């Protein structure tokens, strides 16, 4: 009778038992199970795994990088940079140089973005958001960049962290496999970046009350328009604050208090429609809309009497709350379209931009006697803008309109230089006043407000550029995918910001009731050109216009004798 060695059947039996154990482990869901997968062109793959909690493996995102060279696929070290999209911008979450990078859900910066989403109060099941992953593989003086967009749901994070009821079908681990395909992707030339030796103290805003100073890479800028010949990509060096941003203000000097006691001042605003906050780059000007929101203001007016209600130099301003404004360093690339877009690194620039403004925010007028944003404009920001932009933010060149009431030997005269002066009447404190109003024309014209354009595309623009370069301009499944996901995000943004098809804004004016003897020089400042804020100020001086301009145009027919 034939018989094989006893060892073999024993091995077979042992393997059978082991197989059944493994099957049971798998069957009861103790091992991770793949519940969804997204293929991103030839650039990567996102796999979502449901699983029981595994020891020493916190739930979250895991990015792996593989190099495809010839027919081989192997893990390779690369720069892995992970950002989370937040309702108001991009949050930098993690970075590493490795073949894999783990970002647990409880990462502090990720949690910051998660909390921002949660604070919107929209049910998590109603939308997905996403992470942005940039992989940069460098070899010699060439680099390959692969951007990936990783959709996820905030509810998954809550469940994985035990903040809400767990569910068997919820992804606990999101694994991203990024492919650097050097056979197909065209490399970029590596340009060494020269570090700037002058480091600015980011605490510069810290001396102002009520503002939170932070490194604004935590909030992140909105990349501007792709369709310019320049491409601006934000770097992490920036600073900014959350707080009140002024939309219109009036500032009076000590001279005005002394010379014009008893003067009634009325600062009015009337604004309804979409405001675009543009990003302003030093040396490049307006580089595109940074943020948009629908706002409804007024008509409202704030009135006070110089000398009795206000007795010291200061400002009155209308503001919106909880806005985020930042000064951001960008890298600038020039784009040439020769069949395919080619990007050349041309340097860095400093950009001032609004990152977030609550839609239809509560609005109010208040005074600033040295601790508000107007003081910051004058004191902090002038120094700061000198440092960052190379010229002071507010100077004679930012004055757009002039008007003066002068008491001359011939009586009281009104000079209108650049800007319409009208008159109206108001009742204040039971007294009827006739006001001369300096109207900042149409804000629309002054600021160049465009029709509704949602500003929270969440980083899609810089992203698209990279994709286009990576794919040599051809429409790939990745682009289609990004477009789809992008439009989904767009929809979410649409929930937050009611779309508006027209701008019906209108005016910002300052009313003055002149009395005989009034000596007042009114300068209208447009700070928008520097800060990207549609913010306008009226500066009241007793002896000259703001900035003491050497010339201003007052045409012959633009002065009238009054009084």
């Amino acid at each position, binding site marked *: *009778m*034939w*018989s*094989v060695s*006893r060892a*073999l*059947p024993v091995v*077979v*039996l042992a*393997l*059978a*038992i*082991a*197989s*059944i154990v*493994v*099957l*049971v*482990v*798998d*069957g009861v869901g103790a*091992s*991770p*199970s*793949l519940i969804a*997968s997204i293929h991103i062109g030839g650039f990567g*793959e996102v*796999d979502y*795994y449901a*699983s029981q909690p*595994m020891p020493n*493996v916190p739930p979250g995102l*895991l990015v*792996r990088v*593989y190099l495809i060279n010839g027919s081989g*696929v*192997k*893990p390779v070290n690369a720069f892995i940079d992970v950002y989370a999209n937040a309702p108001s911008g991009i949050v930098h979450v993690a970075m590493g140089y490795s*073949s*894999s990078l*783990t970002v647990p859900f409880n990462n502090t910066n990720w949690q910051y973005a998660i909390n921002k989403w949660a604070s919107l109060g929209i049910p998590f099941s109603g939308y997905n958001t996403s992470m942005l992953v940039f992989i940069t593989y460098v070899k010699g003086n060439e680099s390959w960049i692969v951007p990936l967009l990783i959709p996820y749901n905030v509810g998954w994070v809550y469940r994985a962290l035990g903040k809400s009821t767990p569910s068997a079908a919820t992804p606990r*681990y999101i*694994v991203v*496999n990024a492919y650097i395909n050097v056979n197909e992707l065209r490399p970029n030339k590596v340009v060494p970046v020269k570090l700037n030796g002058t480091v600015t103290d980011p605490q510069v805003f810290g001396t102002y009350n009520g503002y939170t100073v932070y490194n604004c890479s935590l909030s992140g800028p909105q990349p501007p328009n792709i369709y310019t010949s320049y491409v601006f990509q934000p770097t992490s060096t920036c600073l900014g604050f959350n707080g009140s941003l002024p939309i219109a203000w009036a500032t009076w000097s000590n001279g005005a208090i002394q010379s014009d006691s008893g003067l009634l001042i009325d600062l009015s605003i009337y604004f309804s429609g979409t405001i675009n906050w543009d990003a302003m780059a030093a040396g490049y000007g307006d580089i595109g809309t940074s943020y948009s929101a629908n706002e409804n203001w007024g008509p409202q007016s704030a009135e006070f009497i110089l000398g009795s209600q206000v007795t010291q130099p200061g400002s009155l301003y209308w503001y919106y709350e909880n806005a985020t404004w930042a000064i951001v360093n960008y890298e600038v690339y020039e784009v040439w379209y020769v069949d395919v877009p080619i990007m050349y690194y041309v340097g860095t620039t400093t950009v001032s931009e609004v990152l977030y403004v609550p839609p239809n925010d509560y609005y109010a007028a208040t005074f600033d006697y040295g601790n508000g944003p107007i003081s910051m404009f004058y004191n902090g920001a002038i120094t700061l803008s000198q440092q960052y932009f190379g010229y002071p933010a507010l100077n004679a060149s930012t004055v757009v309109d002039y008007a003066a009431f002068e008491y001359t030997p011939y009586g009281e005269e009104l000079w209108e230089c650049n800007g319409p002066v009208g008159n109206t009447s108001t009742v204040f404190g039971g007294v009827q006043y006739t006001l001369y109003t300096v109207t900042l024309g149409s804000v629309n014209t002054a600021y160049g407000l465009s029709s509704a354009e949602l500003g929270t595309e969440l980083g899609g623009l810089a992203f698209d550029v990279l994709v286009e370069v990576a794919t040599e301009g051809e429409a790939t499944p990745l682009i289609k995918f990004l477009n789809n996901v992008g439009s989904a995000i767009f929809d979410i943004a649409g929930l937050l910001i009611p779309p508006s098809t027209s701008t019906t804004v209108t005016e910002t004016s300052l009313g003055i009731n002149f009395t005989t003897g009034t000596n007042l020089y009114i300068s209208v400042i447009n700070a928008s050109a520097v800060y990207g804020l549609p913010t306008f100020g009226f500066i009241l001086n007793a002896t000259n216009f703001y900035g003491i301009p050497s010339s201003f145009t007052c045409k012959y027919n633009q002065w009238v004798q009054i009084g």
Partner: protein
Amino acid sequence: MAVRLLFWFYAGFVFASFASSLWLLLSSVLTVMPIPLPYWLLYTPGNIVTAGIIVAALMLALYTYLGVALVLSKLLRGLVPIIMVIAFTIGLALLLAKLAIPALAALIIAYLMLIGTYSVLISIATTRASKALWATATIILTLIPLILMAGGLAVMNYVKYMALVEQAMAIMASAVEAWRLGVEQ
């Protein structure tokens, strides 16, 4: 009957099952762990399909081997696994050629022949235990399509558990047979 030939079928069946289930477990666990992994060990849809194709090819080879061994032993029922393999191969080829309806017909025949193959395995089993295990596996195999047709995707989870039990039964039956043929005869 060629005991030696059948022993290798059962041993092969257990080995293939072990290798595939071990790959599934290892790759699924390691994939979510923050350690560098060779690409083939990633638990991705592409790799799962590749693993599935390799296991299917191994199993088809084993069933062919079983059929040939039985026919050589003058047992014509060995034709059942051979027909199953042929039908399955034709079904897959038609599926690749995007001829869905003929492919479905071929695959249904292959599935029926698989049930037939399990019956053949019952008939040649040498112990009561393995007969019972194969029989249970055969019953589950027969019930799965019926339950799926009746309940649709809603019962997918139950079907998954049934398939798991069926697999476990088949593996244990093969192990018992291998033990019997290898040690006791």
